[in-house]
């Protein structure tokens, strides 16, 4: 674009002196926080998945090897970790549906905040269903 503006002439100087404005944390709303969570959970799941495939691959090595590794998944500490993991997956999945609805459903944008709260509600319900059952399995053995 041949268009010039005032910025042009002093461009060189500016790029060396301009600090990036950071400042306070931006106070976004439901949309932003849901994205932050979606991102964090996505990354967490990804790294877990890398490990999970590797450990599952041990079944190709030998039953003992596999059982040793999977045994560590059954300790109480890991049991709590699994709750976190499932929590992450469940949030990521439900919020993923919310995002897909925003993208493809005509009313999605309008109801995005409501859908965020529905995601939270469904997440709570799902976790209420899962956590006790799982922790009983972890701690009763």
């Amino acid at each position, binding site marked *: *674009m*041949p*268009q*010039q*503006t*005032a*910025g*042009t*002439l*002093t*461009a*060189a*100087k*500016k*790029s060396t002196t301009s600090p990036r404005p950071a400042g306070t944390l931006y106070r976004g709303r439901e949309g932003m926080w849901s994205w932050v969570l979606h991102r964090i959970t996505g990354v967490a799941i990804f790294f877990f998945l890398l490990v999970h495939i590797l450990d599952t691959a041990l079944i190709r090595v030998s039953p003992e090897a596999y059982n040793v590794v999977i045994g560590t998944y059954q300790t109480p500490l890991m049991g709590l970790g699994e709750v976190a993991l499932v929590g992450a997956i469940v949030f990521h999945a439900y919020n993923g549906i919310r995002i897909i609805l925003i993208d493809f459903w005509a009313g999605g944008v309008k109801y995005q905040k409501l859908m965020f709260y529905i995601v939270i509600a469904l997440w709570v319900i799902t976790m209420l269903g899962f956590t006790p059952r799982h922790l009983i399995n972890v701690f009763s053995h």
Partner: protein
Amino acid sequence: MTQSSSFDSADHTIVDGVHYHQFDVVIVGAGGAGMRAAIEAGPHAKTAVISKLYPTRSHTGAAQGGMAAALANVEEDNWEWHTFDTIKGGDYLVDQDAAEILAKEAIDAVLDLENMGLPFNRTPEGKIDQRRFGGHTRDHGKAPVRRACYAADRTGHMILQTLYQNCVKHGINFFNEYYVLDLVMTNVDGVDQPSGVVAYDLSTGELHVFQAKAIIFATGGFGKIYKTTSNAHTLTGDGVGIIWRKGLPLEDMEFFQFHPTGLAGLGILLTEGARGEGAILRNASGERFMERYAPTIKDLAPRDIVARCMVQEVAEGRGAGPNKDYVYLDCTHLGAEVLETKLPDITEFARTYLGVDPVTEPVPVMPTAHYAMGGIPTNVNAEVLRDNTTVVPGLYAAGECACVSVHGSNRLGTNSLLDINVFGKRAGNNAVEYVKTAEFTPLPKDPAAAVRGLIDGIRNSTGTERVSVLRKELQDMMDAKAQVFRTDESLAEVTQTIHTLRERYKNVAVQDKGRRFNTDLLEAVELGFLLDLAEVVVYSARNRKESRGGHMRDDYPNRDDETYMKHTMAYLSGDPHSADAADHIRLDWKPVTVTRYQPMERKY
């Protein structure tokens, strides 16, 4: 970084810290008028637009109601009726040849904008819709006519955006946040000829000299001489002030328009389009008082009349509110639908700034300083005049800063957006024609000297006066004594105040001594222009001992065609710092061009 391809060394050099540029056409101001000119000039000549604001920040964007053109899309209309309304609305102080051009070229001006992409509201057939506006009538005043083309209540916003979009399309060169502070004149054979402008780059504090064959001033109005105004903080009349300081005349400066419906106390405008859609002005007792003053077109009478009636209602004790100091604009009967679709922005303004919902409550309003009818005198080709007849070759002015004069003593609503388009286009075209044959006028030695002196003077001043204090005193005084109603006595008082303020201004100092983005400094410079212009306004007003259009003298309540059917021309002559304005302002007259319509009494 953005490419700087067009700044090759040939047209950009730096000498002694001052940047020098060369363009065929330099346009000062990127509002509606400036960008309309740029669209004509840009493709045909090497053009630069210099603006103290980013183009889309210009105050044209605040215009709401519409732009007049006799398209006759919704009802019978023609440009002759439009011409008549413009002349009558301006209380016959209009140059009729110019008004005729305005009304005739209006149609193309609107179609040009539509073709450039402006999203006008549409009729059911898909044509440009039109609405009623004050003073626009069918068949010479018989009834209101639908003449204003509009885009909801953001017509000016759409015009500004559309023009900027087309400037982008044409790749116009912009110098944004560059404040033009001087016009460079070179003495050639004993005559001063414009050779360029000097601009201050806000971001660096450096000076830039733009040498040009043709210079177009389109710097907008100067409503900031008043306190209550619909104008932006940045409308400080720099362009008009620069021309004034060069000894060139200013025309009809006493005529300032007060728009009837500013949000009370704030001045934020509620468009006349609201009344065009049927809103009604009421006093404290709920009476539709305009019926008494203008029985035929009532609330849609021209602005000067409505503003006066409002002030009179309040003066006679019929004002509303705890202090009985405003009247109401009643939109409640229009219904939420009309307000939300046709007047969404003003509905929001009332809600945001006064906490009043126009759907259910009447909105407190009072007149607000709105539009300068006067300014830099030009002929119909937008060429700036040195006296009553001689043009300054290569110097043009268009838009609110200019006085063609199509608005006479009172502008009709929607005629200004029209003015900036018609005469902006003419300025651009004529400048292009001019540069085809013209040569560059050589720059004088150190053309930036005066501006450097001005800037350094203020920056280094150790004075004790503060800009904000002086400005507030000026604005308060102008509101109190030189507003809708004036008398010799009140004007004499302001003259005195302005004189002391000008003295104190010499002692003004700024706190920010830096170079980069020193807005403190520029506010001081702007105040200088405000003081100069306020003085001319008041001085011209004192001299016109009659009441006409926007100039209402309590001590001379009648129009006096015998003596005053002529334009005021004010010149700076003598020592600008002399105590008595009479020692440095010289007034003269310029005849009004009358072609078809003889002055009559103005009745609505």
